[in-house]
């Protein structure tokens, strides 16, 4: 009796499917590439002793996507969608680069400044400005959705189109290289041998989890996603719940932008966080959160992001060109679609039902 209930709990858990997908990919890696799981310790002259290996890379490079997926989960749970996260990443990255670089805009950058390792603004202020910019973008989206009652997809599409323009406006159309070493710590640094970005994801995930599971906000978000009108009639300010979700998503996008620009040492309005909105939505869908809103699981979304990034690293390590990765990703999406569709579920159920009675008759 107890066994079945455990089995049932496992099979009904949201974490099951993404975990299964992850394990399948990892098994595939183990077979195709024996060296995939190798971990080692390297003594880096700049960042000290730290772990290295594919698994560390997956978590380090996948950190921005995980962050964005956390924010996106809350937005999708309210029945919305945020297409602008890629643009928010670009804006946040541009903001950081502009505040650091002493040479602004079209001014000629002399070699002296490039090697000076200088910054125009103290680091805490840069971080604050980055986060403020992202949250502001989220606020804008949230106001459009909750107050102006524009469809989430359209409302965030505006920032998706205009946002990259704004990012380019901030950096004056240039790809700005960053030469300020302390800034690199977010994307490249290590604490106790593990990448800093992992800790950042953990902290944000913990904060989000406390916010939604230890206060009533999570319940509010789910109820807004299931039925916004009845939520309103039961005395909850559904507008502010939505606003909060979008602002949090913008906030997560800003942190992702910070890590990403720190990782690549530059800010590029056109390419920073390209296609991140799509990957993040895919991660959330993989985590079992319905696009129509309602119940959600932050952990499942993060695992979804890990699956996507593991898949990416796997495809790269097979020697597939980076550009052709898109086609492989499409196949992944198709498999996910098929696994999650009612059509397949019904088919599987029918399969089991047909087997069930047969067992009964033979016994």
């Amino acid at each position, binding site marked *: 009796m107890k066994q079945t209930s455990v089995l049932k709990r496992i099979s009904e858990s949201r974490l099951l499917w993404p975990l299964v997908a992850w394990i399948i990919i990892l098994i595939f890696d183990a077979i195709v590439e024996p060296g995939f799981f190798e971990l080692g310790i390297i003594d880096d002259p700049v960042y000290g002793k730290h772990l290295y290996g594919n698994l560390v890379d997956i978590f380090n490079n996948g950190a921005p996507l995980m962050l964005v997926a956390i924010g996106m989960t809350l937005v999708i749970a309210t029945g919305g969608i945020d297409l602008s996260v890629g643009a928010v990443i670009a804006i946040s990255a541009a903001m950081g680069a502009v505040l650091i670089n002493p040479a602004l805009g079209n001014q000629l950058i002399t070699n002296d400044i490039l090697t000076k390792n200088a910054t125009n603004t103290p680091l805490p202020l840069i971080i604050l400005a980055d986060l403020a910019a992202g949250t502001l973008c989220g606020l804008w989206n949230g106001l459009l959705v909750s107050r102006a009652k524009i469809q989430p997809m*359209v409302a965030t599409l505006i920032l998706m189109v205009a946002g990259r323009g704004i990012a380019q406006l901030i950096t004056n159309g240039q790809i700005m290289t960053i030469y300020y070493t302390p800034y690199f710590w977010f994307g490249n640094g290590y604490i106790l041998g593990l990448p800093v970005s992992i800790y950042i994801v953990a902290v944000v995930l913990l904060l989000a989890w406390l916010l939604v599971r230890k206060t009533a906000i999570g319940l509010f978000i789910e109820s807004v996603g299931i039925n916004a009108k009845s939520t309103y009639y039961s005395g909850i300010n559904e507008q502010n719940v939505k606003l909060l979700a979008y602002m949090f998503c913008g906030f997560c996008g800003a942190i992702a932008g910070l890590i990403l620009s720190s990782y690549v040492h530059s800010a590029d309005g056109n390419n920073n966080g390209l296609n991140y909105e799509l990957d993040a939505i895919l991660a959330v869908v993989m985590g079992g959160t319905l696009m129509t809103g309602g119940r959600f699981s932050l952990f499942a979304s993060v695992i979804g992001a890990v699956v996507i990034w593991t898949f990416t690293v796997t495809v790269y390590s097979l020697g597939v060109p980076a550009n052709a990765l898109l086609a492989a990703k499409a196949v992944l999406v198709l498999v996910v679609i098929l696994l999650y569709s009612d059509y397949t579920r019904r088919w599987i159920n029918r399969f089991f039902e047909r087997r069930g009675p047969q067992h009964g008759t033979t016994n």
Partner: protein
Amino acid sequence: MAQRIKPLLLRYGPLLTTFAIFLLAYFIGGRLYPAMQRPQVFFNLFINDSSLLLVAIGMTMVILSGGGGIDLSVGGVIALTSTASAALLRSGVSPYIVIPLMIVMGVAFGAFMGWIIQTLKVQPFIATLMGLYFTRGLAYIISLTSVTITDPVYKNLALTLIYIPFIPNAYVYPTTLVAPLVLLVAIYLSFFTRFGRTLYAMGNNEQSALLMGLSVARTKIGVYAFSGFCSAMAGIVFSMSLLAGYGQFATGMELDAIASVVMGGTALSGGVGNVIGTLFGVLIHGTIVSILQFNGTLSSWWTRIGVGVLTLIFIGIQSLFYMRKKHS
């Protein structure tokens, strides 16, 4: 009298607003830059935006079908069509085989996405996103670099000038004429056929369209197939105008197309709007780009910001019109 005018105004209000804003934008452009008053500049809008117009026509039909209908794969299909046709032409296949083949491919791919959306009940957003990834990836698998086209038929079509009668020094290319022709087909389809009426019915309320006994499933798959057709045509036009095929072509065109559709007065919730509005939406987009080009000092990112702001304005106008409609 007022009672009679009001519904008309509500019905054609968004379309008239779009038209007025296009005229206004063009007028301002003409005042700022006298060179923009030349008739050729107007025809250049069609020449430069012919593939955007084609894609936007297909997108309009998809969005009209409602239920969150959207086709994000258009840019990818353009990239795939251009690359595949360039690769086929390079290996010596006749263009008279390549062009129909590409169209069949586009239609088949669109229908496949429509089938996924209809049968597996997948959100159009996700299904067409897969389409975007798949087509763009496939284009890169065919060739990682740009493939040039040297086929004489393509070259002829790309470089022949057709002079506009009665207007001196104004010309278009043969490829420019494709988009207006497809626009006519789309107008016919949406206003004069059973397909079009089903489209509007299911866009307004899919459930009641189903209960009325309309063939919702067939229409939904059909509309995505039509969008695939438009994208494939756009891909052919694109590859002819640039005489090349490349996986990076038309990046972000889906966004421009959606923005143009919205500017054209089509509601993204489906069932409201038409393809004629989309034409003006695309023309507004082209006018913004031309003004920026004539200015010369304004940088390209202002196009994006401009399109974003205009989309916002149009959504505001739309909600104003439709809110009134619901109250009245």
